[in-house]
């Protein structure tokens, strides 16, 4: 009892609970949030696993993501084809990784992907510049931006190839007290 919902089959819910950090209630709530973005596109019955994808514009307009300077990257990283359009699975996945219950190394892995703007598995200087500009909304002068990027590479690049690999990034981020 208590299973009054007809959106998912029980197995689906159980499976989601095993694959994400969410409880049953939270998964249902997330589904409703997803649906609220486009009620006409998202059916109420997911037991047949419809293949519904919401375009990036809708995802990016969510209040939780609206003010985030990295929302485009986040959507791209978690979407199926890297274009920012997300299915419900991707949606759940994204929030599961971003939730507080996800462990740091998992977050670090995804953070690396988010900050890697050109998807080449390395964070190079241009990626860093883009990050800084997004963070400060272009308020720093180019010299300052350049100084910051140089410092970052100097601090974190362990293998001295002029860019940050996943290992460099993880080595650096795992010690950060503020990484949440």
């Amino acid at each position, binding site marked *: *009892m*208590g*299973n009054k919902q007809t959106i998912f*089959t*029980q*197995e689906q819910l*159980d*499976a989601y*609970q*095993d*694959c994400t*950090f*969410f*409880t*049953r*209630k939270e998964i249902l709530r997330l589904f409703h949030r997803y649906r609220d973005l486009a009620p006409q596109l998202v059916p109420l019955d997911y037991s047949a696993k419809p293949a519904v994808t919401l375009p990036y514009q809708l995802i990016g307009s969510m*209040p*939780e993501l*609206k*003010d*985030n*300077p*990295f929302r485009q990257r986040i959507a791209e990283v978690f979407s199926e084809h890297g274009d920012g359009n997300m299915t419900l*699975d*991707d949606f*759940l*996945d994204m929030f*599961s990784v971003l939730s*507080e*219950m*996800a*462990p740091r*190394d*998992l977050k670090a*892995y*995804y*953070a690396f992907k988010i*900050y890697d703007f050109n998807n080449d598995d390395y964070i190079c200087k241009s990626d*860093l510049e883009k*990050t800084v500009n997004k*963070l*400060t*909304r272009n*308020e*720093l002068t180019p010299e*300052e931006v350049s*100084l*910051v990027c140089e*410092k*970052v590479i100097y*601090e*974190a690049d362990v293998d001295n190839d002029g860019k940050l690999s996943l290992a460099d*990034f993880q080595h*650096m*981020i795992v*010690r*950060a007290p*503020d*990484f*949440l």
Partner: protein
Amino acid sequence: DGSDDNEEGSAAENEETAKGTDKGKKRATPRTRRAPARGRDRHGDEEDEDDEDGKRRTGHRRHRSRRRGRAAGNEASDSDMEPAKARKNQANQKSKEDDEEEEDEKGGKSGKGKSEKKGDKKSDKKGKKEKANKKKKDKKKSGSGSDSESEEEPITEEELAKLKEEVEEKKKLIATLRNKPWKMKKKLSVLKEAQLFVEKFEGALGKGKGKKFYAYKVMMTKKWMKFQRDFENFKTACIPWEMKIKEIESHFGSSVASYFIFLRWMYGINMILFGLTFGLVMVPEALMGKPYGSLPRKTVPRAEEATAMNFATLWDFSGFAQYSVLFYGYYNNQRTIGWLKFRMPLSYFLVGVGSIGYSFMIVTRTMAKNANDDGGGDDTSFNFSWKMFTSWDYLIGNPETADNKFASITTSFKEAIVEEQESRKEENIHLTRFLRVLANFLALCTLAGSGYLIFFVVRRSQQFALEGLENYGWWERNEVNTVMSLLGMFCPTLFDVISSLENYHPRIALRWQLGRIFALFLGNLYTFIIALMDEINLKARYFLPFTLEEEKIVKYNMTIWEASLYNGTIPENSTAPPIQVDPADVPRGPCWETMVGQEFVRLTVSDMMTTYITILIGDFLRAVFVRFFNYCWCWDLEYGFPSYSEFDISGNVLGLIFNQGMIWMGSFYAPCLPAINVFRLHTSMYLQCWAVMCCNVPQERVFKASRSNNFYMAMLLFILFLSTLPAVYTIVSIPPSFDCGPFSGKTRMFEVISETLEHDFPSWFGKVFGYASNPGLILPFILLMVLSIYYLNATSKSYKEANLELKKKLQ
């Protein structure tokens, strides 16, 4: 439990993909047919074991499968699946058989359609298991078709062990599946596989008992984490003004914010002091002491009565304000008051001493805590990287907060850049040194000049006082105060200009600035105290030598006056009737404590007024002027001369510290001081927060405040020490006024302690105390404390060094 059966059935199925055959056909049965039945069965189980927070599914399932296993013996139904515990091989075989039977019966699996895929993938992944699976499949094959248990080859120990291992692996995989950085689809399929595998084989291995407990533990951990988070949120919400300060921090940087954090901390201390004085001194006297008008010391004298209620008098804290619980003079020296036998004088004394003690304790404790934070290590090895990757708060969902966050990140980057540039700067040493020496010389000159000016003015005011204040106008009367305030306003700006010669890192420049202004204010304060002492001496010159004389005179006068009253009336009885004399008419003795208290209160109030007016005029009007007159002015006001003011950190911090020094000094004589200060700090917080956001611009070189604020604390401690000296001196050496206050009639104020010891404690207590205060005991004690301080200092130094060594080794 058809669902589980189906599950296991499908697992069996998947394991036997090699077999294919009719199972495969059954696999094709549409899922949907199954769904409702399964759902219902699930419900049945769920209510027993599930809780809304979602136990681990696997545990759940395992449990159910186990239960079913137990029931297997009883039920003969086909839907029975029976991984019984101890029946290893046979049970295994049997279950597989039954799976197959199940399959036959129900026509194949559904719901967990993915399990098929999973089964495939699984066998792809784990080669080892593949072999084991194959072996089992073979065994199954051999066993299939027979309805009854037939003789099966027992699985060998080795295989069993391997199987166990695999099952454990699978379980771990399931438990950590959410931690894997895979796409959801992949996770879901892997999950199905692993689950089926474990379900199938676990019963045979007889494990799974602890699963329920494990799931319960996990749920509790989750709940605990959630509770902790909520509690943290609640705690943060309780901190007053947190949002305001965060806003200021994001726009102006951490150094400006550190002033406000300091202000908030002071507010906390003052609240506690206020609580002490209000609750233990003012309230008991108001509730249980004799009411206004019953005693001479509690009544406004007849002469002043006419003006007692005027606003001007009240603003000056005389009149009714003077003769109330707000000041020392009101309190009666009765040993106990009221039906509670509340010992008023003792309480007054202890509250006075206690507030000072508390202040010392808390300042030292905060310093120690800050020292810990500092010494813990300034890990700057990844400074910029962390700023870049971890500064954005992904939880922000509000555009205003986002704006603040952007501003704060920008400021923080700028701060870090300044630090970086400072460390890269090269200096021309000689020129800098010369300039610095010159700057210090100029600063000293300014200080000397201001000291002399104050001295000169005080002398003049003493002259005026001697000649009678009525002859002079407002300026002469308030000369000392105004000169001090003006000096306090203009000298810091002068120091600021001088410091531009020195070219220090902004944080160090701030410290120099603070130090110089500190010296300035100290000089002012010192001269002020001298002035006060002089005033007291002036009056004392007239009555201290005569104190005993005057006392006698006044008492004599009083007796004569009383006698006259008696003579005037005809005594009705032999016992002298209580003379109904209005206390307002009784002649009063002098009361210097109240006078001192009044001076302090007036000073605090005028200080408060000065600050507010300075903010309004200096910052607000200036900003308004610059903003609106910029259109019709020759040069650009915003960039040119007046422009908007920057927030003056040093001036404000020192103002705060000296204000607190006043409070500490004066609260013994005027219990209302902490209350006034609480009010002042409260309004000051709001006014300054508004003024900063509205009229100030961030400094050009935004720098990071030193994490600890220990510099402010050190100054505060010094001031605390200085301000307790006068109070302690008066307690110990000066006799209290004979006609007012809780200690009247005693030769020294601290005698109240000995009195209490005599009356209220058993006699042996007094003896013990007497022995303890023997100098022969006190001196060795002091020596011991000095030695322990030295020892602790040495140990802490060695720890720090060891710390540094270890850090180096780590790098």
